[in-house]
């Protein structure tokens, strides 16, 4: 019987590859820079390996698509915080990839303890890549009123202007300090963990992997008390929303396009260059602050007035508006660069060539639709009457899901070559997306920002009209 093991990409990849090697498995195509999602284990045809984003692994093991998986404990706890499932069994701490989950505030906020935040009069804004653990934390701490903002990354850059607290994973409190953050509570100590599907443990023989994937035990537990806090900084309360205009710029794939665009538009932003950008680049424009966050998170942040303007893609704007139709965020300027198509993709082996074929396809179970764009995928399936269907949210490496773990993928593509390389084919184009400037439709209520917003808008418009797109 085939045994299926889900392996992590990213930070845990090298250590996990070493672990497999030490355990006597000769695995090819599982190393930094490899584009394959299906590493091969030579000499062991009974072992099926697939590479996922860590966050997806806990889910894949829980639903039984994989017998075993390796991911950090924080992602397992994030799943279990919301979905009290007994399907995931935490087998063993693998001892590497250690980090802790902290509730942090900005050092400049002046609030050095959780008790101080509990007495805060306004609703507390908490940002996190771990929204379920953030909610559990807020309930356990009996915060009277709070708002959880799920983000795709860069949670530490939000406090104090755009959130009061962030729940973030970091390897040491020293690193938090370097980011201008102070921990007010520690939630969890985490490291790479071997997890199993309970049903697989009961029915299948996984003993070879279970016996060999061991590097010694390490205690992992919820941290009861917050770590010592260096409260020597000067208490200085920062206003939630100042009069300066806050601009969000994207990291990731869009960054190089945006750098070129801003340069040609004549907007000088220091520290936002090719390579690793600072989270808080500087600008000599008076009354304008800039932060670098994930483009996925921008519509929600602009809607909530945490940022006034942001450069994202129409794909993420649509994904947000499909979920929250009355959200006060809108496209204020089409920038035009970074063009991609949002497409529906299936395996080349599937005998369908259109969405219509997909609808007519006979099947015994619900159609599995995977995507990072959960709301766009939901609308696609709904509008095209693909019911019954199940949505599978993904956090990257989405092509890996087809065909074993999903039937359809809603994905973006520039040229289609990556899709073709993974033995997939496009059956539908949902829409075209490109970079855009988004703003809050209620921004006019803040007259002190009006002129500066108008200036930025005009500058960017001139940049577009002059044809200065990359």
């Amino acid at each position: 019987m085939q045994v299926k093991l889900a392996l992590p990409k990213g930070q845990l990849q090298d250590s996990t590859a070493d672990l497999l090697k030490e355990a006597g498995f000769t695995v090819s195509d599982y190393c930094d820079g490899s584009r394959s999602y299906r590493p091969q284990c030579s000499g062991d045809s009974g072992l099926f390996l697939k590479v996922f984003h860590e966050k997806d692994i806990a889910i894949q093991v829980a639903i039984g698509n994989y017998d075993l998986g390796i991911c950090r404990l924080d992602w397992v706890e994030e799943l279990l915080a919301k979905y009290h499932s007994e399907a995931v069994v935490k087998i063993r701490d693998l001892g590497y990839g250690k980090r802790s989950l902290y509730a942090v505030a900005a050092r400049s906020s002046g609030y050095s303890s959780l008790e101080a935040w509990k007495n805060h009069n306004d609703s507390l804004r908490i940002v996190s890549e771990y929204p379920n653990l953030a909610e559990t934390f807020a309930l356990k701490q009996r915060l009277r009123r709070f708002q959880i903002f799920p983000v795709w990354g860069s949670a530490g850059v939000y406090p104090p202007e755009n959130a009061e607290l962030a729940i973030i994973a970091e390897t040491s409190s020293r690193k938090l300090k370097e980011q201008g953050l102070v921990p007010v509570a520690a939630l969890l100590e985490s490291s790479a963990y071997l997890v199993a599907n309970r049903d697989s443990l009961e029915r299948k023989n996984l003993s070879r992997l279970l016996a060999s994937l061991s590097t010694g035990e390490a205690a992992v537990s919820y941290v009861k008390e917050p770590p010592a806090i260096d409260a020597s900084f000067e208490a200085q309360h920062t206003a939630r929303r100042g009069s300066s205009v806050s601009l969000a710029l994207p990291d990731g794939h869009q960054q190089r396009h945006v750098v070129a665009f801003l340069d040609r538009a004549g907007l000088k932003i220091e520290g936002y260059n090719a390579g690793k950008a600072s989270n808080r680049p500087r600008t000599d424009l008076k009354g304008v602050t800039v932060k670098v966050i994930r483009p996925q998170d921008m519509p929600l942040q602009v809607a909530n007035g945490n940022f006034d303007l942001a450069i994202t893609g129409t794909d993420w704007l649509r994904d947000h508006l499909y979920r929250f139709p009355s959200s006060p965020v809108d496209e204020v300027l089409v920038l035009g660069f970074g063009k991609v198509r949002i497409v529906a993709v299936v395996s080349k082996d599937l005998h369908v060539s259109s969405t219509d074929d997909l609808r007519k396809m006979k099947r015994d179970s619900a159609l599995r639709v995977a995507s990072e764009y959960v709301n766009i995928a939901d609308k696609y399936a709904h509008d095209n009457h693909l019911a019954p269907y199940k949505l599978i949210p993904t956090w990257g490496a989405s092509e890996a899901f087809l065909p074993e773990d999903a039937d359809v993928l809603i994905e973006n593509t520039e040229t289609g070559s990556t899709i073709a390389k993974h033995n997939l084919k496009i059956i539908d184009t949902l829409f075209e997306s490109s970079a855009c400037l988004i703003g809050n439709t209620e921004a006019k209520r803040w007259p002190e920002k009006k002129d500066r917003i108008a200036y930025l808008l005009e500058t960017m418009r001139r940049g577009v009209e002059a044809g200065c797109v990359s």
Partner: protein
Amino acid sequence: MKVPRCKGTRDLLPQDMAKFRRIEAEFRDCCLGWGYQEIRTPVLEYLHLFTSAGTLSPEMLGRVYSFLDWDGWSGERVVLRPDGTIPAARLYVENFQNLPIARFCYVENMFAFEGTGKESRERWQCGAELIGGSKAEGDVELISLALEAIAKLGKKPVELRLAHAGLIKTFLEGLGLSGEKEADVLDQVFSGSPGVLGDLKGGNPELAKNLQLLFGLKGNSPGFVENLRGVFCSSLPALEPSLDELARIANLLTGLGFNYQIDFTSGRGFEYYTGIIFGFYSAGRRLGGGGRYDELIPLVGGKDVCASGFALYIDELMSLLKEVPPRERVLLRAKDAAGLKPSLALARQLRDAGYVAEFDLGYRETADFRWVVNMRGGEGIELLDQSSGKKRRKTSPAELLKLLEEARCK
């Protein structure tokens, strides 16, 4: 593809609905008779209504159905109502704060996640809330109302068990546990797991022993309350106000001839309870319960007003209720086009007289009906009594109704 019911939900079939409506009707009737006015709160409420400290415990909040609404871009979560009292308190603060006393009753569904899916995640309750007024007399009024409603459903005997939230909380505060531990223990006691008290290691071991002793004692008289005072108050004088309140209620209940048992292991309830806790039991099953919650109204933004309430669990009452006898049914057949109009008129008269008048559309098992009426234009009414096989011919609906009434009275 067959689409199943959602896990943890149940369908109410016709026989279930007959029981449900009977319970609802009896409960409403009782409440209206006591001066309680019916309300219904929305099934959706903001989460923060329930996160205010002291309203629902983290354990209960961890099981609420919370989600972002279509306009939830601000991160403001809404929940499917997990409790009836807190929304009723909100409704009171919004609309009736100027009244010196408000009496509300409701029949509503509550939602809480339950992991196995074997128990229902949607639970219907009959609730009553008394906001303002005198404390002990108010509690006794609510207990009397609940017992009356249960009695109307034929549930006898019903055991009334009493405990006191203020007394339990005062004991726990005296133990010197950490805030988090104290809240956790209280949560478990109120969830029906008083066993947690056996492992307590606070700064006051004598008090821990006394607390275990309290949970091991049972009594059914005002004298028992005085005995508790004698045993515990020397080491914890702060218990006096709670014992005074418990004594007053015990005296009132004894004076009214109610049987009751003071039993702290029955002290199940909500974290917002501050005083008396009462539970109603029959054949070992908890049919409902309630308690005093004097701090809740201020917590949801109202004035400092005392309040108390209870809920009866419809699922439990339904499982104990016998089948509700159906109304007598008559099957009508229009044998030709001319018979249709008079049969419609007759059906209306039968319904007005309290019968179920059902038309034969060709698929009904006639054996389900004692009475079958055949109508043919110009030929009067033919009545078939299927229990005897007799056929009779009547010239008018009045004659027919008279015959049916006579048969019903036999």
